[in-house]
């Protein structure tokens, strides 16, 4: 955190000064470790085993926060008797189809109260649907939806029933003993138990613990399950929805949170509404029903109002009840259109144009060579950036030019490089990790022709619409019917021709539209509760409604924290409804009283008969803790007074996830796709459902049980340096930053340096099946060999900031990674791989490809059958599949 988020780290230092203990779990000793109270080195890619061990420690010693767990999580809910766990199926859960490599999650469902033994059929997809969900990163769509639960699942609040979630969880994690953690993660039992004690002793009524991670944690083929493991632990210890608790995802750039809320993703619309697909969402009604899932609890029951308001914001007067509010105008997704699929499609000549805005995939994305070869095979490419970054200059200076793979004279891609305004040169908001929007003013005018993204897209849309104005083609209607009129300031800022038209659009006007308004009067909405499904309201992102409440830009509030409560509600504005902690009903006990005076946050006031406290209660204001849902109720009415997790289908925090995850209802340790080790727990080596693009230009290093994994004997990982910003576009081109870390380097331990003859400050190169990159050798004790499964494992670390452009140049570490993705959200595994390290500089030109090809040959890549992904025993595969077939038959029989 100190490395990548030094400004945020000030609060950690402040907490430390007040007596907090800071524990840093990281493969290498970083700036964070330097000031932490404890550094625990860990093998890259073994985090589920580590956290799973802590979960087991909690469950085996009865250290969970029992009142919280029974009432606020699904610990008491009883799981179907058809569910079979990884222990019995060699690392698979029940319902696995080895051909499609997906699960039929029917056997994972809850038992329903009315008919014991019968599963809830809500969204009990078969594996065909699951395959589609993987292609469309449906886990992302589920992010804010929570799971849907039909009917009333059976519960055992004594937590003794052998199939209640609590017992299922206990059995599942029982094998993650301190010995297994030591063997798998390379963490000593003493260190591990110290972390266990610190975490549990600092959780409960009086105290809470925060789990903070940076987004490299997600970049694994089991990325979502990493976060799930953390979530289970935090729920068991009562650290969610309470002050000082939670799971904090530190984002990699300013407003990354904002760019998922109002997404730059292929599979969701603003406010986490899923992108419709043509098969299931023929009409607006079908679409809305698939989100709100009638019969389910929770606030998604108003999905129709959110969707219609969004359509009204897009198409204004053209959106009417008669035409389904232009629902047909929305693009539909037909499968995987994620960023990596798109790059491979570019290589295959299926993509003609590409926009890059403040993004430098030639350096910043996994498998840099594939990125550059893809971009070199387009008709046109638009790059908007502060400098001529590598993604704009690849056609003349990429490493592939040296190898002869890109010939500048023949590269057909026409690159349009536009100068962009920096954050200080334009107005707008940032949304940070706490979901808080902070307005920023323009400090200075951008130089020359530099303009904001808002300017670019507004005028691009305006010009395209002008070109098409006379079109009678139906396909142009969605564009021509758009409500595309925003006030502009500083009119005439660009040149004399058409000066009126070229002004900078008002970002505040856009924020007002996002907030939403009453169509008839233009009055800004103050809450998404005011949104209507009849077309009388418009709003660009329902969760942001309230940011312009009372016609005031609430994101622009700057009241000092010293002049208000410790929650500081009058600094900026947080979605939803200016809540600073989500699910904060959980900060009070089931009777609505604070768990302790020290941790009081939101509570039920008997006299006023409403929820009160320091934050905006994340609960219906006047629904008492004693409220119980009437028989047969659904939607908001079905949320009981003790259901704090109001977006979940059962109102409970999910320790076990019966649906919505592609790779299993609980996290379990799989090895990274590239690993020198056999999975110590099961026959199933790595995530069996991972998204895999196995092709000649995307080879993966072999891992056990395949042969030849010893060709790439070391583990490598990458991350950032404080001195540089991601792919370097904002740091390598500035002298005051570039000089701070002027060269690409490779950190190795003294032992590995001796073993491989690497000299401090000499050169070395790192080789994988994709490429080889070189750097200066930095020998340091901050990297320590670990003992894993009885062997010594060397971990190599590299920063990934360099490329061919800027004041300081170097090889890009991301060239080393291949493309393998998490199945839930399609995040790439770019924090762990295997490699070889050799002294000296790498070969250049065609000799580089020869070196890599030679490694490939030695590793048996290409001259044997594709590596097996499903490595569980044949018997286990058959039994897992049988579980799905049994449940299918049963359902058909009913």
């Amino acid at each position, binding site marked *: 955190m*100190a490395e990548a988020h*030094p*400004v945020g*780290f*000030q609060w950690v*230092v402040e907490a430390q*000064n007040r007596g907090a203990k800071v524990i840093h779990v990281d493969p290498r*000793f970083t*700036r*964070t*470790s*330097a*000031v932490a109270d404890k550094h625990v080195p860990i093998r890259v890619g073994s985090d589920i085993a580590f956290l799973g061990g802590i979960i087991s420690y909690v469950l085996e010693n009865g250290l969970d926060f029992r009142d919280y767990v029974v009432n606020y999580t699904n610990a008491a809910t009883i799981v179907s008797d058809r569910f079979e766990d990884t222990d019995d199926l060699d690392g698979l859960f029940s319902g696995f189809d080895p051909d499609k490599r997906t699960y039929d999650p029917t056997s994972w469902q809850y038992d329903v109260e009315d008919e014991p033994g019968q599963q809830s059929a809500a969204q009990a997809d078969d594996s065909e649907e699951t395959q589609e969900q993987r292609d469309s990163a449906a886990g992302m769509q589920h992010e804010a939806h929570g799971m849907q639960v039909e009917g009333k699942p059976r519960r055992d609040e004594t937590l003794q029933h052998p199939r209640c979630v609590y017992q299922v969880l206990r059995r599942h994690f029982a094998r993650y003993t301190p010995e297994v953690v030591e063997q798998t993660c390379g963490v*000593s039992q*003493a260190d591990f138990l110290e972390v266990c004690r610190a975490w549990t002793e600092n959780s409960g009524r009086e105290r809470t613990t925060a789990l903070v991670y940076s987004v490299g944690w997600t970049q694994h083929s089991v990325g979502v399950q990493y976060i799930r493991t953390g979530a289970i632990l935090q729920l068991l210890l009562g650290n969610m929805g309470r002050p000082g608790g939670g799971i904090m995802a530190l984002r990699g750039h300013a407003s990354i949170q904002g760019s998922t809320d109002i997404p730059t993703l292929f599979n969701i619309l603003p406010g986490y509404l899923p992108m419709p697909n043509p098969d299931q969402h023929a009409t607006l009604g079908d679409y809305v029903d698939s989100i709100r899932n009638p019969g389910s609890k929770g606030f998604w029951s108003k999905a129709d109002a959110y969707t219609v308001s969004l359509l009204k914001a897009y198409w204004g007067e053209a959106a009417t009840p008669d035409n389904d509010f232009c629902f047909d105008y929305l693009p539909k997704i037909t499968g995987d259109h994620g960023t990596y699929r798109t790059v491979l499609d570019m290589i295959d000549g299926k993509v003609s144009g590409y926009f890059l805005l403040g993004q430098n995939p030639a350096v910043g994305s996994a498998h840099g060579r594939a990125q550059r070869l893809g971009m070199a095979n387009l008709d046109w490419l638009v790059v908007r950036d502060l400098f001529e970054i590598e993604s704009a200059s690849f056609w003349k200076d990429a490493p592939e030019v040296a190898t002869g793979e890109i010939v500048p004279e023949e590269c057909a891609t026409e690159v349009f490089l536009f100068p962009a305004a920096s954050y200080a040169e334009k107005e707008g908001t940032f949304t940070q990790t706490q979901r808080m929007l902070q307005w920023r003013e323009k400090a200075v005018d951008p130089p020359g022709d530099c303009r904001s993204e808002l300017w670019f897209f507004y005028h691009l849309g305006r010009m395209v619409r002008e070109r098409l104005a006379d079109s009678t083609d139906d396909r142009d209607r969605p564009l021509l019917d758009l409500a595309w009129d925003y006030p502009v300031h500083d009119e005439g800022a660009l040149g004399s021709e058409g000066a009126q038209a070229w002004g900078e659009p008002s970002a505040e006007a856009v924020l007002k539209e996002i907030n939403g308004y009453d169509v008839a009067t233009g009055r800004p909405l103050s809450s998404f509760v005011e949104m209507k499904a009849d077309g009388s309201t418009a709003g660009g992102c329902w969760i942001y409604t309230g940011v312009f409440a009372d016609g005031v830009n609430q994101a622009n509030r700057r009241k000092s924290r010293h002049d208000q409560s410790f929650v500081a509600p009058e600094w900026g504005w947080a979605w939803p409804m200016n809540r600073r902690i989500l699910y904060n009903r959980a900060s009070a006990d089931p009777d609505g009283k604070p768990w302790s005076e020290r941790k009081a946050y939101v509570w039920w006031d008997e006299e006023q008969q409403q929820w009160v406290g320091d934050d905006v209660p994340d609960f219906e204001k006047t629904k008492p803790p004693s409220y119980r849902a009437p028989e047969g109720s659904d939607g908001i009415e079905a949320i009981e007074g003790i259901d704090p997790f109001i977006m979940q289908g059962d109102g409970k925090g999910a320790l076990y996830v019966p649906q919505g995850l592609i790779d299993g209802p609980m996290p379990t340790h799989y090895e990274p796709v590239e690993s020198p080790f056999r999975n110590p727990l099961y026959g199933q080596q790595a995530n069996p459902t991972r998204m895999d693009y196995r092709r000649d230009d995307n080879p993966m290093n072999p891992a056990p049980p395949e042969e030849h994994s010893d060709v790439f004997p070391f583990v490598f990982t990458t991350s950032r*340096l*404080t*001195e540089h910003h991601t792919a370097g576009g904002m740091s390598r081109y500035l*002298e*005051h*930053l*570039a*000089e*701070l*870390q*002027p*060269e690409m*380097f490779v950190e190795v331990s*003294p032992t590995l*340096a*001796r073993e491989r003859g690497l*000299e*401090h*400050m000499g050169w070395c190169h790192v080789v994988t099946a994709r490429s080889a990159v070189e750097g*200066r050798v*930095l*020998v*340091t*004790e*901050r990297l*320590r*060999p670990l*003992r894993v499964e009885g062997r010594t494992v060397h971990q190599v670390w590299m920063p990934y900031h360099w490329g061919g452009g800027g*004041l*300081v140049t170097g090889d890009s570490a991301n060239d080393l990674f291949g493309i393998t993705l998490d199945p839930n959200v399609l995040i790439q595994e770019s924090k762990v791989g295997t490699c070889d390290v050799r002294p000296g500089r790498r070969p250049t030109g065609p000799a580089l490809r020869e070196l890599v090809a030679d490694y490939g040959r030695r590793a048996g890549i290409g001259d044997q059958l594709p590596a097996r992904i499903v490595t569980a025993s044949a018997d286990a595969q058959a039994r897992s599949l049988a579980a799905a077939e049994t449940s299918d038959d049963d359902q058909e029989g009913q």
Partner: protein
Amino acid sequence: MGPNSLFGPLDPASDAGYTDAPKRKGFFTDTSVCIGCKACEVACKEWNDVPENAFEMLGTSYDNSHSLNANQWRHVAFIEKPAAKPSAPSVDLGMPAVGAPVSDVPQDEKPDFQWLMSSDVCKHCTHAACLDVCPTGSLFRSEFGTVVVQDDICNGCGYCVAACPYGVIDRRRGPEGDPKVGIAQKCTLCYDRLTDGQRPACAAACPTESIQYGDVDELRERATARVELLHERGVMDARLYGNDPDDGVGGTGAMFLLLDEPEVYGLPPDPVVTTKDLPRMFTRAGMAGTALLIGAALSFVRRRP
């Protein structure tokens, strides 16, 4: 000039002739919370328009700025301190590890590896040798008790460079075309910000309050309290540097809390103002001259028969 003005405790601004000077200003750099982010280096260069130093990787951990010099008015040192060998705990010289430190200590016995970081800066000495030797008056004592160079007066003679006991001040060597090449340059404690009631740029940018700015009196108290707190928490290596008005430079305006010997951070252990002995030298030179004259006179006297 008072009898003590080249050595010993005093208030530098009033000693320099200011009446009604504001309280003496300075830095307290608490290295125990430094995270080595180098925001101080960058903020300093941005505010003071200091050009780049060198685009060269040094291999001294994460330090690529080398040292304080004319193009580097803040410098963050990174020291990778290998764990002490348990078998010989008393002979740790505490020297900074540069290059490939090879340790044979088994893993589980070396939990005390340390990565020390410290942001160094001009000390703004109570007795500033650079200022004392400056023949042009380019260096002057400000009303805040700080020492500041005036670029337009400096003639680049370099006397100050040799005089500084910390090796802080230096003549700018590049980049080519920079108008201040050849001119002595160093931290001004952001004199132009202080006169507008603002903190120096480095202190404003420091995220963890490792760099604190304020009245020197108060900072000295704060530093003492911090060391006591760290000692209570078992950090027995914590110590202050530059806070003693009785040291060789009369105490500094920029003091430090260190977690090891000053040498480890590249700081002189017992700096003495190079002009300390000037009065004695003058006296001795005077005495020698007088003796010479007397001798010469005597030689005439003796000639008399």
